[in-house]
């Protein structure tokens, strides 16, 4: 093995700035996609448990449609297949304002929304049905019972699997490099291309991902302890694809 390490490529020249830009883009896209995914996930996850069959079917259709196709295919679809269908003005605006970012954001959001949905459904199903019945018998409507009773409990139950899923979203944001989003993995490759120092560049990217995941996991473990409901833990479709 004849390879000379040169770690200084990471802080001399542009590499440091590229890594920082990449990190910021990764956080930006993950954060925005996370909000989209959580919103879609809570909405569809709750709808999958309501006592009205057509709403349940619609939510199930959303989940099964998006989570059974690779994220990469959704990214290609959003970036290459959807824009030609849009009106000219919208398309031009998009390509002037980073179409790849928005396509990746939507793909990441809807794909992980479908996966969050399963986590939230499992959380709701872990709550004894008597809670719902009691809520409705006090005079709350179904919507109020979900908003005031069921969801607040479910969200506290699902913190561990939801953290896991959030980390998956963060890691999957790396798939956005395939459509040209300059996120962390993209910048890592760029450093490799410019300096031919593969080890150093990849090690830097890897360490940043590990640190990000570790930080989030540590923070969420504290949050989990803070919000734990004594005697209740979420069960069920935690490890589902």
């Amino acid at each position: 093995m004849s390879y000379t390490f040169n770690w200084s490529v990471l802080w001399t020249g542009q590499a440091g700035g590229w890594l920082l830009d990449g990190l910021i883009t990764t956080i930006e896209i993950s954060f925005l996609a996370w909000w989209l995914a959580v919103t879609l996930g809570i909405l569809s996850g709750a709808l999958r448990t309501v006592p009205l069959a057509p709403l349940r079917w619609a939510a199930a259709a959303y989940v099964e449609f998006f989570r059974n196709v690779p994220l990469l295919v959704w990214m290609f679809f959003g970036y290459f297949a959807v824009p030609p269908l849009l009106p000219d003005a919208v398309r031009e605006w998009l390509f002037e304002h980073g179409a790849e970012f928005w396509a990746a954001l939507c793909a990441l959001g809807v794909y992980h929304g479908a996966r969050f949905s399963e986590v939230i459904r499992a959380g709701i199903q872990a709550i004894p049905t008597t809670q719902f019945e009691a809520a409705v018998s006090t005079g709350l409507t179904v919507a109020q019972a979900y908003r005031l009773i069921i969801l607040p409990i479910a969200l506290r139950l699902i913190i561990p699997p939801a953290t896991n899923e959030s980390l998956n979203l963060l890691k999957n944001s790396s798939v956005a490099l395939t459509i040209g989003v300059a996120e962390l993995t993209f910048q890592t490759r760029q450093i490799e291309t410019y300096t031919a120092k593969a080890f150093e560049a990849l090690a830097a990217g890897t360490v940043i991902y590990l640190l990000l995941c570790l930080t989030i996991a540590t923070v969420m473990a504290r949050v989990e302890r803070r919000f734990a409901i004594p005697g209740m833990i979420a069960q069920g479709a935690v490890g589902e694809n």
Partner: protein
Amino acid sequence: MELRVIADNFAFLILQGFFGFGAFAGGTLRLAVPAIVFGFLLGIFIGLGRLARSRWISVPMTIYVEFFRGVPLVMVIFWFWFIIPVLVGKSLPEYSVALTAFVVFEAAYLGEIVRAGIQSVPRGQVEAAIATGLTRAQAMRHVILPQAFRNMIPALVTQFIVLLKDTSLASIIGYVDLTKAAQIVNNREIRPFELYLFIAAVYWACSYGMSRYAHALERRLNPQAA
């Protein structure tokens, strides 16, 4: 919609892209099937290692699992793509690189499935096996693992679904799987909507079909839970 593009390239997309018969060493299944088999074999060692009483074995195995679960798969593929040529002195074909990366990466997740499967066997079984005079290794091989494997099957099918979808990422190093095949056809035909919708449908059918199967298996193995 111009479905002719699918009909004209059907053989290339399905035979070459999905199954892997043809001029390129490619194919989604040709990558996914060996990856799950070898990944599982490696996963058995990792799962057993995590449960080992010796810290010298369990700590490194835990680090292995946590490391690969904390890094994006895309990053792992790039590691192997750039590092293998440096280590062995020549560049290997995309297929070998992709297969190695998937086996190493999936083994971390499969190791956790193996561990959970072993831990799902009641303790009394181990104690009874040892009480009959079996050594620990014999008890593991003849009593624990056979029961553990049975419990693992639904999780293994689910993991295979994840893996099948993840193999689309091998296209980033130029491996000709279903996704790359669609890209190749699209470069010539410029029909992104039809082509990406078609491969989405193929992935969907496999993934959804297997997830129903996993669900049915789970119900049969564990009737009171579902």
